[in-house]
């Protein structure tokens, strides 16, 4: 008996034909064993995911400062304050800018995937590996490295600009350059991931569709619009929604590269939450902001799942 058969639900039986007693007992027994098997994972999930989430929700209704044992229940005061918090919404706007910026990486990933799936390309595996390497690197390492690249005086970026006769730029110090600079760094780690996902989609498209289109006189652009794009629709949906989820919770690069500055020009919601909870000791208020961020991510995830279900049908 295979494992699948062993764990599957008992089949429905007609009223007139009850299942043999020993079969029913064995099926119930199998179901209980299933619960025991998931026990370790369930324990870890409850202790390290569910319990902290419930604690965070509870703390969001208090004024706890994270230091004192005393905490007062203040109902929805933190949420009311959050509604009028310009800094929170400013940070959220930066997250959305980041989402939009990540679509550039997806575009680059699509171009690279298209090139790598072309029949004339040589050393495809080598290119795919090299282009994917940034996606495997720690964001802390990436942040430190790009900090050096963006250095106003000693960074290679300004060095290249000056060698070309242009003025150097304060990439991370300018109100209008810091956010694009951080997003560009994030994109450097993301395009390779997008490329691999899209490459998988491209390779699953039936080549005979292109041959038939060519016979019918369709050009490259027409083939791309009418065959390629519909063929990788699921992958594009996945990347767009993942970009929402990942960038809404982004923290590392901002922490390493700018501390949310200059001013609050690169502050994102997760960094603001960290600042509230661990710098200014407003744990209750920070928990409320975290709950709101979680709800936003949750809504987007649900929308994503619905979209996928619809496209699968």
């Amino acid at each position, binding site marked *: 008996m295979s494992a699948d058969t062993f764990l599957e639900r008992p089949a429905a039986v007609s009223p007139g034909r009850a299942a043999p007693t020993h079969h029913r007992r064995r099926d119930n027994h199998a179901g209980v064993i299933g619960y025991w098997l998931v026990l370790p994972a369930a324990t870890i999930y409850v*202790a390290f995911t569910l319990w902290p989430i419930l604690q965070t929700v509870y703390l969001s209704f208090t004024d706890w400062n994270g230091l004192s044992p005393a905490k007062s229940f203040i109902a929805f005061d933190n949420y009311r304050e959050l509604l009028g918090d310009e800094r929170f919404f400013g940070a959220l706007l930066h997250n959305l800018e980041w989402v939009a910026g990540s679509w550039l990486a997806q575009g680059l990933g699509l171009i690279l995937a298209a090139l790598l799936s072309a029949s004339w390309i040589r050393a495809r595996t080598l290119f795919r590996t090299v282009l994917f390497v940034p996606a495997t690197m720690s964001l802390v390492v990436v942040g430190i490295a790009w900090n050096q690249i963006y250095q106003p005086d000693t960074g290679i970026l300004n060095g290249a600009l000056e060698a070309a006769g242009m003025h150097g730029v304060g990439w991370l110090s300018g109100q209008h350059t810091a956010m694009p600079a951080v997003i560009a760094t994030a994109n450097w780690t993301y395009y390779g991931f997008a490329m691999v996902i899209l490459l998988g989609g491209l390779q699953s498209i039936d080549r005979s569709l292109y041959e038939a289109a060519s016979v019918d006189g369709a050009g490259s652009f027409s083939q791309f619009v009418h065959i390629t794009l519909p063929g990788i629709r699921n992958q594009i949906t996945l990347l767009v929604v993942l970009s929402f989820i990942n960038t809404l919770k982004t923290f590392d690069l901002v922490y390493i590269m700018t501390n*949310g500055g*200059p001013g609050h020009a690169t502050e994102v919601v997760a960094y603001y939450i960290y600042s509230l909870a661990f710098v200014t000791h407003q744990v209750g208020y920070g928990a409320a902001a975290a709950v709101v961020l979680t709800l936003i991510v949750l809504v987007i995830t649900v929308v994503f799942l619905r979209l996928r279900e619809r496209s699968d049908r």
Partner: protein
Amino acid sequence: MIPRSPRSTFWRAGPIAVAVALALGAAACGTTTGGGNSDGSSGGLKVGDKATLTVVSQFGDNAALQPVLTKLNEAYEAAHPEVTVTIQFLSADDEQKTLPTSLASGSGPDIFDYDAAESALGELATNGLVAPLDTYVDKYGWAKKMEPSVLDRAKYDGKRYGVPRSSEAVGLFYNAAIFAKYGIEAPTTYAAFLAAADRLKAAGVTPIAFGNKDQWPSSHLIGAALHANTPMQTIRSLESLDGSATWADSGVQASMEIARTWAANGYLTSNFNGVAFDDAFKAFYTGRAGMFVEGTGVTPDILQNATKPGDFRFVSFPMIDASLKQQAEGGVGGAWSISASSKAADIAADWIDFVHFSDTAEAAWLKAGVLPTSRFDTSKVDVAPLLQQNVDVVRAAQNGGGIGAWTGYTSSALVTEAWNGAAQQFLGRSQDAAAFAATLDDALAQARKKK
């Protein structure tokens, strides 16, 4: 209905019960809190008892000071073989992020050194996480060894919670070799300081090394201008939650504006908001900038890392308002404290007294660049000229208008956090002095209201 046997019930409901029990057990780990006595006595181990102590030190980012503390600790362990002391070195930044949480969970170290500001140690103390030291101040005579103005830097709500371990003041470092090369007069007056900056700029040398990516360096730069141009009484009121002064004060705003003119005139490192403190500091001690507005705390690094430490000088930041006596931004660099949950507070206090106040310890710290907080006679120790200049600058302020506070970093974490973002915008000229002051006053009002 067939009654279920207990075994059967466990078999069915067991996974859920076990999962919940294990999860709650795991979640409960680390939430126990220790207790200390409010009178400062530990009620635990006494001096002479066998004990293991843990110490968290801020010297993680000051490699020159780690061996000093390690050697003094070895000497203490040799004198007290029944005691084992484990020291963990953290950067000040990392310590501020981790220590409050570990203290609040009751798993903090026995001893730690921490910024003595009301916004730092004061916040931990007033939340019951630090043991009051008044009993030990009397027992070891610390009040006789230190000026009250120094010892009281770690006094909150009428109790002493820390032993300040270093005196610090912000002043003006300059590279005498560069000044000599361009025939520039020493910047001992404000007019000479401005003339030096103009001359260096004309010569293509960065006049003042400044990197504000880490945000806190703006406190020292703007604070230097503030302390050179604002009466000490106003500064102390501004930096206290019990005070009434505000950042909107016209004199305070005018002082902040002076610092911004240094940026506007091109005296500071270009694109300073994107330059890390370490990089700006390195530019200074490697001879790529003429001046550096910083605290005495960086002196050990200059002595250790500069190719020619003898090229560097340190003077008081010159007073802008000539009617005021010499004063300086600063205070104490850190304070030794004992966790409220420590079961060996008596031994911890004994350790602090040993590593801080013995003549051997005072001399070792001074040689390493840590300026004494006690009345220790520094002439007994042969130190590098730059260190002696540090001592002179601190004493000049103490004997003059006084040492004020760490600007924007003393009263409350709320003000500090507001300062960090707004100061970058202010110096970067995307916010004027009035808007900068309004941001700080909002945070200050909130902090004062909470207290």
